């Protein structure tokens, strides 16, 4: 039996309407986030418990009169810490160290980034330098100090050299690993879109590698910070830096100050680490590397 389709079918929507409808069905929206206070609390309480346990063990050791002339009670150290934070000398020391850290770290990123990119993209360099970078990464940076001091004297230049030698290999390895993981399809698309040579690196390779590169940058920061602290202890350029201040406290037997300084240095390490993690999360979310419903 013949059926007249044209008269029985409903009027077909236009292409615009149909696509808009489909897009609306696909757009499930973003899951609502928990309130900030709630999220902060959820990440904070395990840390607070851990801190409490450490303080308890410490206090018990003090009560037990273990090394009584050296080990100060948590309350004494806390008082010392409070005094320290209230002094302008302390903030000056922070500033001196921060300057050194920032300049050194930027140079680390520059050297590590250029070397890493070159090694990853130029086969001859990879064969020649690749193994050397890994070798340098396994070498404790303290071992470079005699050489650095001989070359640059007891100066901040020596410390910066240490930071670069100690940390740039980690950054370079981050770049190499990241660039190696760039999907070949992206390179193909980039070339099709007209990216060649440096513009391919700038617009395709480096952005594609960035999530892994960021891991190398984070590791590089840890090594740079180690080298900086070791340098401030050993090279002793500026008694007003955080490391220099700690060395002073050691020579004068101010053990509470020593412990307070250690706490501050650990605290700085944690703050920077949290900052890196936040950036890392942000990048992963933007790249679509995090399951949206789980974030």
């Amino acid at each position, binding site marked *: 039996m013949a059926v007249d389709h044209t008269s029985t079918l409903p009027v077909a929507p236009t292409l615009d309407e149909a696509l808009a409808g*489909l897009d609306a069905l696909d757009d499930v929206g973003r899951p609502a986030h928990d309130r900030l206070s709630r999220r902060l609390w959820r990440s904070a309480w395990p840390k607070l418990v851990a801190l409490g346990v450490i303080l308890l063990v410490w206090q018990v050791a003090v009560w037990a009169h273990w090394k009584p002339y050296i080990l100060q009670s948590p309350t004494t150290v806390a008082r010392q810490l409070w005094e320290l934070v209230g002094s302008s000398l302390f903030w000056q020391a922070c500033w001196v160290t921060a300057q050194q850290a920032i300049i050194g770290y930027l140079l680390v990123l520059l050297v590590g980034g250029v070397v890493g990119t070159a090694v990853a993209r130029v086969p001859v360099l990879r064969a020649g330098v690749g193994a050397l970078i890994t070798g340098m990464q396994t070498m404790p940076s303290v071992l470079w100090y005699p050489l650095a001091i001989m070359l640059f004297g007891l100066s901040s230049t020596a410390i910066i050299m240490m930071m670069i030698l100690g940390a740039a290999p980690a950054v370079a390895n981050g770049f190499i690993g990241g660039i190696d993981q760039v999907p070949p399809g992206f390179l193909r698309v980039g070339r099709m879109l007209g990216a060649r040579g440096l513009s391919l690196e700038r*617009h*395709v390779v480096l*952005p594609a590698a960035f999530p892994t590169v960021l891991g190398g940058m984070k590791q590089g920061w840890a090594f740079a910070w180690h080298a900086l602290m070791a340098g401030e202890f050993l090279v002793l350029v500026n008694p007003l830096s955080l490391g220099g201040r700690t060395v002073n406290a050691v020579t004068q037997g101010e053990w509470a100050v020593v412990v307070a300084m250690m706490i501050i240095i650990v605290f700085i390490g944690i703050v920077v680490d949290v900052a890196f993690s936040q950036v890392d999360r942000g990048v992963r979310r933007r790249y*679509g590397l995090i399951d949206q419903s789980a974030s």
Partner: protein
Amino acid sequence: MSILTANPPPTAVVRSAPSVTLAGVSKRHGDAESGVVALQDVSLDVGPGEFVCLVGASGCGKTTLLNLIAGLDRPSVGTVTVPVPDGTARGTTTAMLFQDSALFPWLTVAANVELPLRLRGVPKAERRAVATDLLERVHLGGFGAKRPHELSGGMRQRAALARALAQDADLLLMDEPFGALDAITRDLLHDELEALWMERRFTVLFVTHNVREAARLGDRIVLLTSRPGRVAATFPVDLTRPRRIDSPEIAHLAATVTDQLRSEVGRHGR
């Protein structure tokens, strides 16, 4: 002919005739003894503004073929001729669309569409205007600020189409672009692509293993054999546009092509 929407030139831009010619093209991967012959003696002419669909089973060397035409690879034997910019034309003349849209995840959708313009130094304001227009054209007007992963597969493919159009290319190579989409979305994207093509008349080489899709879209269907890839047959599609994939004419043509495709595939089992 320019396919860029924004600021169309007052007089038509004269370009070299956009046509693809493959003459006796063979491609062998690897060395002479153990290598695999992907393509053997393929000759093909694609006229300016023509929509040609290449159909073949696995191993017909269709990706190799597109890579050769795109200039990403070179033939072992034979010549590949593609449109060359005539000096006044800016940028690339060949655009490619892949099965996974391959939008860059570090860029917003709009920035992805802008990228080819940025790469050839188009000023910011102009490329923004072009991207906005093109996204409107593929019905993604409100999605420019989103990230690719926030879009559905069909929307990503439309964004990739907008990006390919931003290249202002004479030749669009499509490598199974709708293969991963659901049937409803795919049908709508056929309509979308056909409308765009009728509007702008760029040359299309469309690879698929969906025979109906080929009959729905192409002016001509070229059937490729597998291992090695050779041209087995050519079917003209003399059907008026716009077409519908569920029309009896397309079903009939698809049946004819499918029969021959199966006899080609069957040869490998014997």
